[in-house]
């Protein structure tokens, strides 16, 4: 039964100054789903790039055996010719091309004349779509599909290449729970068809649900491979392997003693910027000093849209409703006005909306409150360095210097830079949109500790998160949002994942 399809032996890969992988050995059985997990920067993606030929043979040490034969891939095309296909975390589809065009991109089906036979291609694509359970017309442009469906198109594309070993890098990171569940079902179905699957994931509940074995990678080494069936592996067990220590309580304890109300919105309504529909409708919520309030909602529920419309009308049009800060009604028509009123918004996608990646830590930290460092338009550069240094120490930003370019920091440290930036504006209320997305377990814990320090200092915090355990672990009170409306509000003591999910899917017919 132990039929090994892939064996990577003693892989070592170094970059100038860093050893990304050291002596990693990985064996994958035929027809299994093999999970790979580890903290960010542990070397998971590097290992998969070695396997798929992104790093060509010769740029690393060690051997790869596929189906018992030694392989030397010079590039992606080599590995794909052998049936190894990788789907990256950031999907590689061309938005304006159709589903069929994307599926056969670089692999076009040519007729006898040398021209592409689109009828044949579309028919083939339709068959592939059916096999991944996606009911869309193959001529539909990919841009019209949601992320979940785009993921399925990627898998269909892999199937078109006669895939035998499918590698998925964080396949469900951007998916909501329903799309994630559908994807996991599909992976099980592919397994039935004999396709072997390697899945990199942060989501331990998915790993325990679907994987046959799990390899844990830490600091560029393969720490252990767990047999999920025989060993009865728990999430705690995997976490222990990843971080090398037990996290006895994942969320730091906090004394909760909410004070006066800091922010309240009433009857908040936002129209989509281009389409003629309401994204947020009649929302009312409030948050008090020293309180953490959660907003739970599926993707498309309007969470980010709500937050951004409150934050200086950065999203949508026809925004109506009333906004109160410390009981006084305020107008926050621009981001600058919102900041002046003590509101800070830490964006969901820090690379696209939160940071100037090509600039250094210092200037990113000061970016939202330069006026506090300047007089008559002149910036005090030395004072700025001091501020950044203070942030670096207090937020524990791991960087050799505040002059280091932010783009080179890890996700967790980048997030700490964004938090530093907003804390320097000295806000009364912080809206944190997915504050721990894509960062490793250790950094998550640090972010939680920072949030606790803020509420202890009397700040009001709103957390938007897709991870229900995170909301349950961090918040005092949780609102649920569905299809742009508040569908529930409860103290955390009364909330469970099941009760929240029920409220989040309350208006499902409207969401779909």
């Amino acid at each position, binding site marked *: 039964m132990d039929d090994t399809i892939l064996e990577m032996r003693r892989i070592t890969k170094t970059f100038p100054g860093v050893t990304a992988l050291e002596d990693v050995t990985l064996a994958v059985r035929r027809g299994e789903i093999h999970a790979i997990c580890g903290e960010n920067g542990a070397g998971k993606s590097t290992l998969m790039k070695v396997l798929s030929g992104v790093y060509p043979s010769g740029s690393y040490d060690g051997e790869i055996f596929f189906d018992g034969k030694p392989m030397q891939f010079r590039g992606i095309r080599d590995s794909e010719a052998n049936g190894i296909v990788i789907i990256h975390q950031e999907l590689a589809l061309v938005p304006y091309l159709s589903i069929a065009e994307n599926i056969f991109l670089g692999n076009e089906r040519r007729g006898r004349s040398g021209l592409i036979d689109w009828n044949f291609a579309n028919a083939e694509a339709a068959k592939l779509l059916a096999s991944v359970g996606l009911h869309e017309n193959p001529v539909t442009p990919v841009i019209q599909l949601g992320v979940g469906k785009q993921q399925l198109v990627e898998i269909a594309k892999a199937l078109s290449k006669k895939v035998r070993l499918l590698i998925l890098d964080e396949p469900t990171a951007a998916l909501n729970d329903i799309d994630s569940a559908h994807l996991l079902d599909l992976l099980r179905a592919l397994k039935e068809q004999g396709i072997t699957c390697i899945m990199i994931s942060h989501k331990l509940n998915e790993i325990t649900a679907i994987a046959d074995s799990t390899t844990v990678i830490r600091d560029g080494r393969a720490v252990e491979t767990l047999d999920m069936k025989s060993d009865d592996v728990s999430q705690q067990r995997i976490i222990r392997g990843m971080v090398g220590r037990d996290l006895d309580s994942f969320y730091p304890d906090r004394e909760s003693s909410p004070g006066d109300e800091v922010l309240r919105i009433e009857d908040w309504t936002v129209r989509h910027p281009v389409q003629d529909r309401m994204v947020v409708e009649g929302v009312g919520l409030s948050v008090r000093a020293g309180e953490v309030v959660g907003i739970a909602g599926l993707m498309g529920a309007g969470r980010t849209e709500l937050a951004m419309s409150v934050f200086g009308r950065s999203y949508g049009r026809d925004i109506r409703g009333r906004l109160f800060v410390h009981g006084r009604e305020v107008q926050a028509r621009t981001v600058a006005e919102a900041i002046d009123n003590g509101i800070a918004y830490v964006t969901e996608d820090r690379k696209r909306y939160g940071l100037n990646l090509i600039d250094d830590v210092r*200037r990113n930290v000061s970016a939202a409150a330069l006026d506090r460092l300047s007089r008559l338009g002149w910036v005090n550069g030395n004072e700025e360095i001091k501020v950044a240094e203070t942030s670096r120490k207090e937020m524990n930003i791991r960087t050799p210097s505040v002059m280091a370019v932010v783009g080179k920091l890890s996700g967790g440290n980048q997030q700490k830079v964004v938090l530093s930036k907003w804390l320097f504006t000295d806000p009364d209320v912080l809206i944190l949109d997915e504050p721990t997305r894509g960062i490793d377990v250790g950094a998550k814990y640090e972010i939680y500790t920072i949030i606790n320090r803020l509420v202890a200092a009397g700040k009001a915090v709103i957390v938007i998160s897709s991870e229900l355990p995170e909301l349950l672990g961090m918040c005092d009170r949780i609102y649920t949002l569905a299809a742009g409306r508040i569908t529930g509000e409860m103290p955390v003591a009364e909330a469970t994942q099941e009760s929240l999910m029920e409220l989040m899917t309350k208006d499902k017919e409207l969401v779909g």
Partner: protein
Amino acid sequence: MTSIKTPSTERPTPPDSTPTAALHGGTNDLRALVLNNLRQSGIYVALVVIVALFAVLTDGVLLSPGNITNIVLQYSYILVLAIGMVILIIGGHIDLSVGSVVALTGAVSAVLVIQQGHPWWIGVVAALVVGVAVGAWHGFWVAYAGIPAFIVTLAGMLLFRGLTLRVLDNISLSPFPSEYQQVAAGFLNGLLGGEGFDAFTLLIGAIAVAGYAVSGFRTRVARIRYQQPVESFPLFVARVVLVGAVLMYFAWQLAHARGLPIVLIILAVLVLVYGLLTRRTVFGRQVYAIGGNLSAAALSGVKVRTVNFWMFVNMGFLAAVAGVIYSSRSNGAQPAAGNMFELDAIAAAFIGGAAVTGGVGTVVGAMVGGLIMAVMSNGMQLMGIDQSTQSVVKGLVLLVAVAFDVYNKRRAGTAR
């Protein structure tokens, strides 16, 4: 309040240790210093190499007093344009119209001064007003109507060339009164006397060197006070001596030709002002922030439209300054004046290290980039190389400079 925020009002506490104690911790490794700043130092090295190359190829004529004066007079307007251009490029924009705006502002000035007989300064003021108006026009379309700068200024290039022809009635105007000619062709000479050389020019040179040394030292002291890494003291002295020597040599050569060109004073003031504007002011920071990540800047409270608008107004102003200098130098206004100036200014910015994607670049870099182009043109002219070859060489240099930049960035990207 919270332990995390830092009150900006709190004054820095000077460390107990004396500055000399901190000096030993300074960056001593020259090689590391150069390598760390390859992107910036690369162009200085390139300038030195090119100057040396052409000095040899022209048997030293390149560095003769008369020729150095010539280079300053001939390329000053390109350098003025390059200042505005690099700011736009940092902000993620471009301006293709500056050549036409140079022509238009010169034409307006010429009509007022030459045709209608107004005093010279009316012409200068009118040119500046027209330049600012043109900049506001571009700024409106880019910042408030949301049209890409490439399109807006391409339209402006045609539009303002057409207006130039209209203003001039398709003919050249000439000559300007002598006061107006002084802007580009005038010299400060003999103010303090001197035997065979101009003592005043040397004095200005010495003041510049002293200013460089003092401001460098003050920055250094401040950095030490804030416990920031600084270069080692000998290295600092070496840098000041080197820059000082180059400046004094330059002044010495000018002093032995016709003295201090007025246009050089204009240029020096502009470089100083805009160097500080980009590095030390909130406006400058916001330009870099917009070019680096537009969305992040907007969500950090930067008034993106306002900043974009003023970037273009500023470009219009500087194009008018260049227009005045150029019309003064050519002693008149021609319908085809300023043709292709935009390309020289853009090339200067990119050779000087500005990034095609925005967010990166410096005024000083653009000046060095402009000087590289200037020295190459001048050197090749002295050698009698024909126009076609000059064009080919300049094109290749621009391509190599940007390719080097892209290569550098890619290397930095993979070294993670």
